[in-house]
Every structure is written in structure tokens, then in C-alpha cells.
């Protein structure tokens, strides 16, 4: 029990500490791919520090909601990220919130962010909010379909159980799993505003989505929102790692060595996934906004196909 609580706290602290580093690493790798030297991998930490030391400018037409929302977005994203097993399973709160809850918590964060985009009453904020919500209408069901597939395999919607099932002897390679993986990758790219859906590196582009919503934010509010975005990227990569590459993750009641191995394995997995993400991102061009629904629709269909295959192939579980 105590150990579960400690694991949970360690997760909460770890994701918070590691998230900016992950973004820093992806930026560094990307810069190297583009034959630039790129900023140091700790640059995101410096950015956050710089932002919270700056004066905050709030638009005159902004309401109190505008100032509250960053903290709520950060809190919901942080809670969701802390619920994904990274280096060890057996989280104290794992039994309180399953994968559906994690998806829904991210939904809450998105809902609030979209409201923040509309609060000041500018056209850019509206563009961002409306497009973000449109993407979500396909990405969220796709994510839930992936979740259906996984939980039908594992007989549970809890991430720890799913991870344990995947690493266990009962796991089989299946077409449904492959479909779910592809769908999950597409959703991750869309949800994290990466190329080809959105470009995290640009501002002032008519195609921007995420950046348009947070255009009016500055100072400490912006720092908190940026940190939430870092956490979200970490969350999705951890999720892929936890479910599809569960090897090395320390299980409940394992010794200290297992935890150390689990931690090392987690770092390696994150590094690999970040590399693959950047590789994909550099190889592809940004999509037009109205092509994105087609991409996300593909994810939804793949997820649905995976689930239906499972429904008809399993008698009961």
C-alpha cells in the first residue's frame, strides 16, 4: 500500500520533471535533422523560468476565467500524465482512474483551453478553438476505440492491467493490436499539435491551431500552459511505451533493481519514441486544415475496425 503511494508520488514528480526535457530532446533531434545545431536540451526549463519571471499581460476584455484556466489545464493534464505507468506499474490511483478517465481528463483540459481561446474575443482565438474542437471530435472517439481494443484484450480498462497483460504470456500478436497502434500514433500526433496536423514551431500562420488559442497568454500563465503541453507529449509517448513496449517495467512488489531497470528502460523507450516522432515529422509536410479530419478519420476507422475484429473473434472475456 505504502509502496503504491510512493510509486504514485514518484510518477507525479517524474512526469513533471521529465516533460520539459523530453520536449528539449525532440527539439534537439529535430534541429540536428535539419542540420542545425539547435538549442540545448534544457532550453525548455530555461524558457519556463524566463516566462514565470516576466510580467503578465492580460487583455482588457479577458474575464477571471482567463486567469484560472491555465492552472486547471495544467492540473488536469498533470493528473492524467501521473496516471500512466512509466517505469513501474501498481500506481495507488490506478484503481481510481482507468484509461477512459485519462482520455476524459485530457478532454476537460481541451474544453477549458478552447474556452480560454474564446475569452478575449479575438478572431485568432476563435480560429484556434473551433479547429481544435473539430479535430477532437474525431481524435477522441479514435482514442476511445483504441482503448476498447486494448481493454478487450486485457479484460480491463486499467492501464496497469493492460500493461501487465501485454508483457504476460497470454499476449498474442494480432491485427487488432497493430490497427490500434497505428490509430494511437495518429491520435498522438494530432493531439500534440505535431506536423502534419499542426506545427509546434510556428506562430502567425493561418493554419495554426494550438498556438492560436494561447495567443493572448503571457508570463506565468503562458509558462503553465506550455508546461501542460510538455506534459501532454510525455503522456502520449508514455502511453505508447506502456502499452506497446511494456518490457522492463517494474511490476508491483518488485525489488529496487527492478525499479532501476524499469527507469532505465523507460528513458530508452522515450528516447526511441522521440526519435521516431521527429523522424516522421521531418519527413512529412504540413497538411491543410481540412485534410486533417481525413487523417483522424482514418485513425477512427482503424480503431473501430480493430474493435469489431475483436468483438467478432472473441466469445467472451
Amino acid at each position, binding site marked *: 500500500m505504502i509502496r503504491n503511494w510512493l510509486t504514485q508520488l514518484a510518477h507525479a514528480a517524474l512526469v513533471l520533471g521529465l516533460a520539459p526535457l523530453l520536449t528539449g530532446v525532440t527539439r534537439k533531434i529535430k534541429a540536428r535533422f535539419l542540420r542545425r545545431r539547435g538549442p540545448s536540451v534544457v532550453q525548455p526549463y530555461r524558457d519556463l523560468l524566463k516566462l514565470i519571471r516576466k510580467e503578465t499581460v492580460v487583455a482588457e476584455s479577458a474575464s477571471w476565467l482567463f486567469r484560472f484556466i491555465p492552472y486547471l489545464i495544467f492540473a488536469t493534464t498533470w493528473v492524467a500524465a501521473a496516471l500512466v505507468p512509466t517505469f513501474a506499474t501498481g500506481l495507488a490511483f490506478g484503481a481510481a482512474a482507468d484509461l*477512459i478517465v485519462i482520455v476524459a481528463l485530457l478532454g476537460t483540459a481541451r474544453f477549458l483551453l478552447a*474556452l480560454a481561446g474564446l475569452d478575449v474575443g479575438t478572431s485568432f482565438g476563435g480560429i484556434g478553438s473551433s479547429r481544435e474542437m473539430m479535430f477532437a471530435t474525431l481524435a477522441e472517439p479514435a482514442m476511445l476505440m483504441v482503448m476498447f481494443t486494448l481493454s478487450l484484450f486485457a479484460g480491463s480498462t486499467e492501464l496497469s492491467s493492460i500493461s501487465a497483460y501485454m508483457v504476460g504470456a497470454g499476449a498474442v500478436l494480432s491485427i487488432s493490436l497493430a490497427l490500434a497502434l497505428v490509430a494511437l500514433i495518429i491520435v498522438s500526433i494530432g493531439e500534440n499539435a505535431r506536423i502534419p496536423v499542426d506545427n509546434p514551431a510556428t506562430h502567425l500562420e493561418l493554419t495554426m491551431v494550438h498556438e492560436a488559442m494561447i495567443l493572448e497568454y503571457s508570463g506565468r500563465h503562458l509558462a503553465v500552459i506550455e508546461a501542460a503541453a510538455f506534459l501532454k507529449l510525455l503522456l502520449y509517448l508514455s502511453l505508447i511505451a506502456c502499452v506497446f513496449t511494456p518490457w522492463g517495467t517494474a511490476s508491483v512488489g518488485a525489488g529496487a533493481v527492478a525499479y532501476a531497470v524499469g527507469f532505465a528502460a523507460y528513458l530508452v523507450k522515450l528516447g526511441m519514441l522521440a526519435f521516431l516522432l521527429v523522424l516522421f515529422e521531418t519527413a512529412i509536410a504540413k497538411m491543410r486544415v481540412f485534410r486533417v479530419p481525413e487523417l483522424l478519420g482514418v485513425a477512427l476507422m482503424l480503431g473501430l475496425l480493430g474493435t469489431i475484429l475483436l468483438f467478432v473473434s472473441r466469445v467472451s472475456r
Partner: protein
Amino acid sequence: MSPLLLNQLAASGVAWLLIWAVVALVVVRGPRTSQLIYGACALICAVLAGLGACALFTPGAGANALELPVGLPLGRTLLGLDPLSAAFATIINIAGTIVSGYAVGYGTHAREPRRVVPLYPAFIAGMNLVLLAQDAFSFLIGWEFMSLASWALVVSDHHSADSRRAGLIYLVMATAGALNLLFAFGLLAGHSEGYAFSDMRRAAGSTMGAVVLLLTLVGAGSKAGLVPLHAWLPLAHPAAPSHVSALMSGIMTKVAVYGFIRIVFDLAGPPAWWWSIPVLVVAALTAFLGVLYALMEHDLKRLLAYHTVENIGIIFIGLGLALAFRASGLAAAGALALIAAIFHVFNHSLFKSLLFLGSGAVLNSTGERDMEHLGGLIHRMPVTAVAFLGGCIAISALPPFNGFVSEWLTFQAILLSPQLPQWIPRLLVPAVGATLACSAALAATCFVKAFGMTFLGRPRTSTAAEARETDRWSVGAMLIFAALCLLAGVFPGVVMDALAPVSRMLLGTELAPQLTQPWLRIVPIAPERSAYNGVLVFGMIAIAAAVTALVVRRFASHAMRRSPAWDCGFPDASPATQYTAGSFAQPIRRVFGSAVFRARERVEMPKPGDTSTAKAYIEVHDTLWEVLYAPVIRVVDATTERLNRLQFLTIRNYLTLVFTALVLLLIVVGIAR
């Protein structure tokens, strides 16, 4: 309390409501007397809610029904609260109490109180009578009472042509629906010796069950707003005064759901496996189309009404799953699906009432329902905005509010459906799940739009800029609703345990008690399979947000400056440059609407040198109306046009007609003999 006494008290509650309706007819002249009537309604509803809750845990309240000495010569009039009635009576009367409290403040603004106030208690009485009825006769009396009272409330604003049209369509649909229910009861009673529900139950299991199901699906479904029978709903619900809209959307649709459960789960006997298929298909379509329609709306109240259609779809998805599980003997899974559905009934009665009350407050202080003319109300109506925001988060099925819990339970039920032995439902259910997930995400979009356009941004008109916070009664009622939404989301185990008698009554089984679970979590099936802990999720979010805010406060710069909006360096002073409801929904219109609504956009640019403005046109078709309703209306019109000539015949023609009719009748009689 003895069961019979409970039933007597509940019946007298209905009688009191009717008495107050008559009193209102006599005394209501102005605001003071209206307040008196609404206050009385609130009290009676509170008592009825308490009685319902007592009856839920009083075994035998259904068997000891109160028998009244009035009614059909053949049947008896029986009133009683069995667990199903009691659960719904509690749900609708909780909402009824709070809405009546709101009306104490809001109802004073009515222009013609005598057209509204006397009908209000009658409407609530009708709904309670439907729930209390333990025989088909009083059920239908209550049902018609409810329909007619609400119809009269819809047309209370008789000056507006829209209201009159809505009233006409509502009346036609309500009559058609009641006719279907009449036939359904007729079939059920045909084999049994009487019209009492207990007699029908005893004779259940006849071969006509399938026909009863379809008749009920049409009859109760048209009242609840199942697509494609929803057409009246988005017209009628918004046309009524806002507190009545809250009752119609939040509560009356629930009475329709009750009617469906009563007939299909309780009276129609054991279901065949395919019964679930029409229910699931219609429900998924309803959920998806309802929210798409809502997204196309920019009238706040109509948006909410269309959203009721979506939620009814979600409820019926749960009911369809429960039917499928029950038919295959999977009682535990059936109990989960049924509890999910009724939990959503409860949730929807809370947040939809709340949102309609909020729209009423906005309407009252600005005179506007059109979101394109609102904006920035969070500054002028801060408390209404908070309550409305709570309702928006709850209805979008986002944690930690209550809407999420019932959808979570529905998803858990969907995940159990590979256990079903038949192929068709197993293929169908994942698609239903995807539709449900999609409509949940669309609902979030819809409520970002509703809240964002109404309360956020800059005011689009001067009336919006000068809005005032509404009165204290209204504000209080909305805050109570919002608090209940949060509480039901944080402590869902309480609601699930309270609903256990219903599943015991209908399915003979129930979920494991939730309140004995550690940490107040809910475990629908088994802890290693899935669990949700509202308290912890809420607590974690609150702690995380507080910690973050404290840390940022401790270490960050405190300097803050107000300045004009940045907007990428090109801020525009005109509020017209903001995103509007139409532009917010544009991506959705392009992605989903081009197929469903044949939505087209067209921009007319002036010729070079021409200084006139460019114009953008949006064309959206209500496809269902055009395909299903318009032809029927055309046929009826054409037929009446023909028949109309019969009015202007000569006396000779009439005599000929009468004579021919007589001869024909005699021939028919002769052949029949």
C-alpha cells in the same frame, strides 16, 4: 412508513398540485400570487421527491397500490410507487423542486401570468400521475394530461407565429404518440383480464411482444425525442417560458423514458434477442444527429433542445444494451447497462434543467436567445456564468462532473457486449460505441460554442453589454443544480446504490453495493476490471491546481498589466470581428454537415471596382424534415384540399352522398352477416 400510507401521500401530492392549479386559475393576477403558486409547487415537489426516495427503500410499495373508486367500468384505478416509479418520481421531483424555486423569481416576469401559472402545477401533476399509475387507464390519463398541459404552456406566448406552429406540430405528434401507446396497452391487456399492470405482468410473454416494443418505441420515443420523431421537440421546448422549457426538456422526456422502461422491461415479458437492435440503431442515430443538429443552431434554447435529443439517444443506448443482455440471460451486465441509463436520466434532468434555467436568465436580462447577439456576459452575469459553465462541463461528459460517470458506465457496459451470443449485436455494439464516443466529443464542441459565444468574448450588441445579473431565486436555483451535478459526479456510488432496487425489480439482479467500496470508488463489475473514483479524481485535480497556483505565486513575478488584446498585432475594436456561433461551427459543418445537412457555403464577391460588400451565404437543410415530414404534410394538404370541396355542395349532392353511404353500409353489413 407503511407502503399504503406512502402511496396515499403521493396520490394526495398529485391532488394538491391539481388543487393549486385551480386556485391559481382564480387568484393569479400579478407577480405576488405567481410566487405563491410556484412556492407551493416547490414544496409539494420536495415532499413528492422525499416520498419517492422513501418508497425506493420500502419493499411492497408497488404491491400495495391505492385503489380509487373512479375509472373505467372494466378496470380499476391503481396508484402506487413501485421501485421503478419511485426512482423516476425522485428524479423528476428533485428537478421539479429546484425549477419551481427558480420560477419563484423568474416567473414574476411573465407578461401574461394567467396563461402560464395555472398550467404549471397541472403539468407537474400530470407527470407525477404517469409515474404513480399502476394501471394503463390512469397512465394514459396522466400522459395526456402532461401532453396537453405542456402544449398549452408552449402556446402561452400566442402572439408569436413560431409558438403557434410549434404548438400545432407538438399537438399532432403527441396525439400520434399517445395513440401508439394506447394500442400497446391494448395488446398487453388483450390477453390479460384487466388493465392493471399487475394483470398485464401475469399474462406477459405473449407473441405480440415485438409489436408492443415497436409501438412503445414510437409512442414513448416520440415523446422522448428519438430521431426521426424528434421534429416537434426543438420547436416546442424553446417556445415555452424558460422554466417550463426546463421542465419539458429536463423532466418530461424522462417520463417518456419511464414509459418505455415500464412497458418494455416490466410489462412486455421476456425480450427476444433482436429487440435490442431497433433500439440500439435508433438510439445511436439519435445521439449522433441530435448533437449535429445542436451544433448547427445559434439560438441558445433550440441548441439546448436539440441536445436533449442527443442525451435521449445516450439513455436509449443504455436501455438497448440492457435489453440485449437481458434477452441473452446476462443479467449482471444488463443491470449495469440499465443503471447507466437511469443514472444518465438523473444526470440529464439536473444539467439540462440547469442549462435551460441559465438560458432563461440570459433571455430575461438581454431579451436575446440568439447567440450571435450575445457575448461577454461573464462580466455582467458572473454567477449565472459559473452555474452555466458547470452545466456545460457536466453535459459534455467531462470529469469530475456527473455526465462523465454515466457515460463511463455505458462504456463499461459496451465493453461487456462480446459476451453476447448473437452476431448482429456483436457487430453493431462497437459501432454504437464509436458513435457514442463521437457524439460525446461533438457535445463538448457544442458547449464550448454555447458557453463561449454567450458568456465569453466581447458583447456583440448593446443589450448584451448592458445585461444585469438575474434575481436571487433564479441564481440560487442554478447554483444548487450546478452543485448537484458536481456532487453526483464526485459521489456516484450514492446514486448507483439508490437505483439498485430498480434493477432488482426489472432484471432480478443488481450490481454489488458501491458504498462499501474503499475510498468511495465505484466498481461496476470487478475491481481488477475497471473502477472510477470521483472523490480522488476531483481531489487530485483540486490539489494539483492548488499546488501549481501556490508554487507559481511563490516563485513567479507578480507583475500584471491590463492592456488591449494583442491578436497577433492586428486587434480590431469592433466586436463583429470575433468568431461567431456560425463561424465556430464551420469546420464541423464542413466535415460532418456536408453529408448530413447538405450544407453549402457560397461567397458572392463584388466585381472589381464595385464598392458593394461581399456576401457569404450558408445553406443548411434539415434533411430529415424534408425527407420524412414534408411529404406527409404535402399529402395531408392535398387531401384536405380535395375534401374541402365537400363543404360547398348543393343539397341534392349531399342527399346523394348520404344515400350512397347508407347503401354501402348496408352492403357491408349484409356481407358481414
